[in-house]
């Protein structure tokens, strides 16, 4: 990263900003702190123009609304991965010449959507109206009828618990002329009509109240309930017709989607350009920007700035200054950046771990997923996705990473002789009554699990050694070679010596001479660690610290043992695969058996693949994050976010 500061003429600003955006290699930093500085404050002001950016934001949200509506009502299928369409700058500009027409389309669809919202709310209203009237459908007097000269007419509800016949009985007893109608009932209430003499009103009302009667009125409605329902239904069907027509009309505009996407992206660019002005300082005739540029992009940036006639300065950051972080990796390591990113970006002065674990990640994944057929499926599937879609960013990296992991899986599958577990053996035995065994090129882990276990530990030891080596490298780079010697060198001595000693003492490997060398290496290492482990402490702490450091040997032990998961998960894949095969073969030979075998195989192996691919991924991550990163990695950097065309649908390419 290099620190960039530019002073340029106000007149050339638009052009320069456009150039910087197309280059996409400069992160322009906020200058708030300069404005707080008295010295700067006299000279410059912030160029910001919030209302411009807000205006673009509003337009963006309406275009987005239209695009979403087209997705919702349209017939076009959503692709599995959304990718950006590569388009030349010339074409992009050309499409946007029709900006006004596109804008008209946006307005048209927006008005359709607006009408759609109205129609939807009218539909809701009509449906609610029908629901509220349905219980009264049997009431054949007009709803506005409140009575005659001598009678009161009303409708109302009783709670579900009330006894309607009892109420009728009481009314009959107490009054001379009351007619109670039981129109309807549901779970919550009874729907009641009442006609009574006006002169007995008080008496009747009292009785009704006793039974929990609540009057119901429809102040806005005239005519009977049934007729009103009829009216609502007519309205509803008209509304639904209109809704269908509106959907049709929106769908008819689906062809405009592409152009709308152009508009959307041009608005994104315009908004970002307006936004960035909040990071510009202006004097009147000149403006000032400050930012970061990756060292590799410095040359093309200098060319651009030279062309535009700016005064600029490129400096290396001061020691210890925090810079944004950009990961740069080769072709093979690049996809594994996704794993680093999922953990945390390295700190600004730190080391990018990606190139150091890419290979081991694939190897671990392959060991745990170890099945040739699964590997082939994974490799092919990811290969096809990569071929078919122009993926970018994180999605691309993930898919590509699984592609490499698939290849590693094939490798280990061949080594250990697994193809859908033992499907070939099972099929040959069940259907052809022959004994066929695919020989493993190296060995079969089911028969020699100890070999694979030791191999896993060995791999783990190498992996941990690499992590420790990186720590030593960082120490030396920081000018602390003594720390590197004490914290890493002595441990190398102790661990290597320990392994040789144990191998000699327990396995009889290497003979007594070598074992003795190992023993002395262990002792020297241990003594060294005890003597130096507490060097940063004072007094008695020096001794305790030394023994404390030596106790760290348990940490290394558990780190190495942790790699036993390579064996365990590898076995899980192959044993579950053979469980599936055995289940498939249980119904014996013949056509029927074959069909069952195929069905059980497809379901079982898909399941096994899914669960074990997930497991292999998670546990490879764990081995990298905990056992490897833990040795040296310092995360916590801020991502480099260049001022660029962060478009959503279109990738604009320079004309060449």
């Amino acid at each position, binding site marked *: 990263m290099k620190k960039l500061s530019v002073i340029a003429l106000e007149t050339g600003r638009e052009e320069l900003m456009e150039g910087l955006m197309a280059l996409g290699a400069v992160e322009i930093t906020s200058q708030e702190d300069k404005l707080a500085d008295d010295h700067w404050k006299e000279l410059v002001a912030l160029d910001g123009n919030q209302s411009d950016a807000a205006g673009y934001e509003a337009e963006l949200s309406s275009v987005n609304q239209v695009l979403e509506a087209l997705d919702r009502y349209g017939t076009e299928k959503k692709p599995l991965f959304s990718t950006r369409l590569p388009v030349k700058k010339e074409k992009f500009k050309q499409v946007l010449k029709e900006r006004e027409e596109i804008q008209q389309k946006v307005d048209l669809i927006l008005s359709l959507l607006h009408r759609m919202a109205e129609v939807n709310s009218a539909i809701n209203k009509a449906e609610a109206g029908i629901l509220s009237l349905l219980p009264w459908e049997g009431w054949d007097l007009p709803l506005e009828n409140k009575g005659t000269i001598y009678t009161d007419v009303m409708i109302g509800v009783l709670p579900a618990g009330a006894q309607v016949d009892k109420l009728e009985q009481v009314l009959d007893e107490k009054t001379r002329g009351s007619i109670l109608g039981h129109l309807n009932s549901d779970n919550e209430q009874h729907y009641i009509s009442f006609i009574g003499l006006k002169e007995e009103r008080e008496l009747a009302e009292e009785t009704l109240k006793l039974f929990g009667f609540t009057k119901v009125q429809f102040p806005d409605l005239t005519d009977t309930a049934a007729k009103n329902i009829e009216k609502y239904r007519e309205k509803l069907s008209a509304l639904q017709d209109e809704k269908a027509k509106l959907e049709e009309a929106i769908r008819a505009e689906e062809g405009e989607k592409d152009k709308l996407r152009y508009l959307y992206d041009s608005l994104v660019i315009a908004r970002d350009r307006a936004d960035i002005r909040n990071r510009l300082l202006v004097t009147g005739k000149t403006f000032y920007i400050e930012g970061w540029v990756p060292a590799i992009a410095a040359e093309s940036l200098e060319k651009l700035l030279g062309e535009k006639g700016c005064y600029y300065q490129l400096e290396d950051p001061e020691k210890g200054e925090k810079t944004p972080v950009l990961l740069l990796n080769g072709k093979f390591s690049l996809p594994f950046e996704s*794993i680093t990113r*999922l*953990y945390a970006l390295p700190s600004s002065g730190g080391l990018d771990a990606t190139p150091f674990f890419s290979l081991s990640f694939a190897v671990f994944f392959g060991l745990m997923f170890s099945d040739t057929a699964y590997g082939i499926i994974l490799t092919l599937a990811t290969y096809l996705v990569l071929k078919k879609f122009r993926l970018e960013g994180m999605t691309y990296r993930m898919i590509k990473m699984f592609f490499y992991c698939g290849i590693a899986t094939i490798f280990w599958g061949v080594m250990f002789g697994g193809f859908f577990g033992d499907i070939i053996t099972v099929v040959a035995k069940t259907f052809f009554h022959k004994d066929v065994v695919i020989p493993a090129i190296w060995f079969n882990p089911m028969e020699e*699990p*100890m070999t694979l*276990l030791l191999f896993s530990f060995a791999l783990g030891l190498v992996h941990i050694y690499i992590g420790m080596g990186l720590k030593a490298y960082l120490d030396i780079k920081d000018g602390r070679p003594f720390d590197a010697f004490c914290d890493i060198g002595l441990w190398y001595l102790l661990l290597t010596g320990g392994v040789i000693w144990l191998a000699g003492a327990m396995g009889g490997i290497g003979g007594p001479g070598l074992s003795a060398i190992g023993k002395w290496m262990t002792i020297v290492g241990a003594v060294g660690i005890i003597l130096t482990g507490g060097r940063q402490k004072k007094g008695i702490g020096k001794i305790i610290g030394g023994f404390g450091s030596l106790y760290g040997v348990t940490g290394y032990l558990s780190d190495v*043992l*942790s790699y*036993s*998961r390579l*064996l*365990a*998960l590898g*076995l*899980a894949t192959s*044993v*579950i695969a*053979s*469980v599936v095969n*055995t289940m498939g073969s249980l119904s014996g030979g013949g056509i029927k058996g074959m069909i069952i075998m195929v069905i059980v195989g497809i379901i079982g192996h898909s399941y096994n693949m899914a*669960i074990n691919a*997930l*497991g292999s991924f*998670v*546990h490879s*991550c*764990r081995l990298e*994050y*905990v056992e490897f990163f833990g040795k040296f990695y310092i995360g916590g950097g801020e991502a480099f976010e260049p001022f660029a065309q962060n478009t959503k649908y279109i990738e604009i390419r320079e004309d060449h």
Partner: protein
Amino acid sequence: MNTEVANLVFNGSYLAILGAAIAALAGIGSAIGIGVAGQAASGVVAEDPKKFGQALILQALPGTQGIYGLLIAFIIMQKIGILGGAGLLDLTIPQGAYIFAASLPIGLVGIWSGMAQGRCAASAIMLISKRPEEIAKGMVYTAMVETYAVLALLISFLMVNGVQI
């Protein structure tokens, strides 16, 4: 009568089958763990249905204990001849008892680690409800628990593998 029952129970083949059954009990832990994680997942998906896929991945993590149990049960069954056509072998009592003992690590560790991992997965699901981009961290926290199920699986496997029949 009593000797008949005693012969049935204190018999190598029976002990070995009992071992396979105990190994398969690891599924209890997975079932509980997945259940706990699933409840959390439903809560999160109710807020944001787009998180279904992510939540499902995390929910699946405590499922492995059941698989490890199945794996050991399967290997035992194959070893004593229930699977693979040869028919149940006649085992001596020590042989059966060894297989029984070998099944204990995965059976017991599977149950408790599955439950603990389920709670961890549920918390990870809560984590993605606020910060979906941090799913990898939730996965690693959850996988930390599984280490001990893996170790138990390994020990059970090596023991079963080491018993001579």
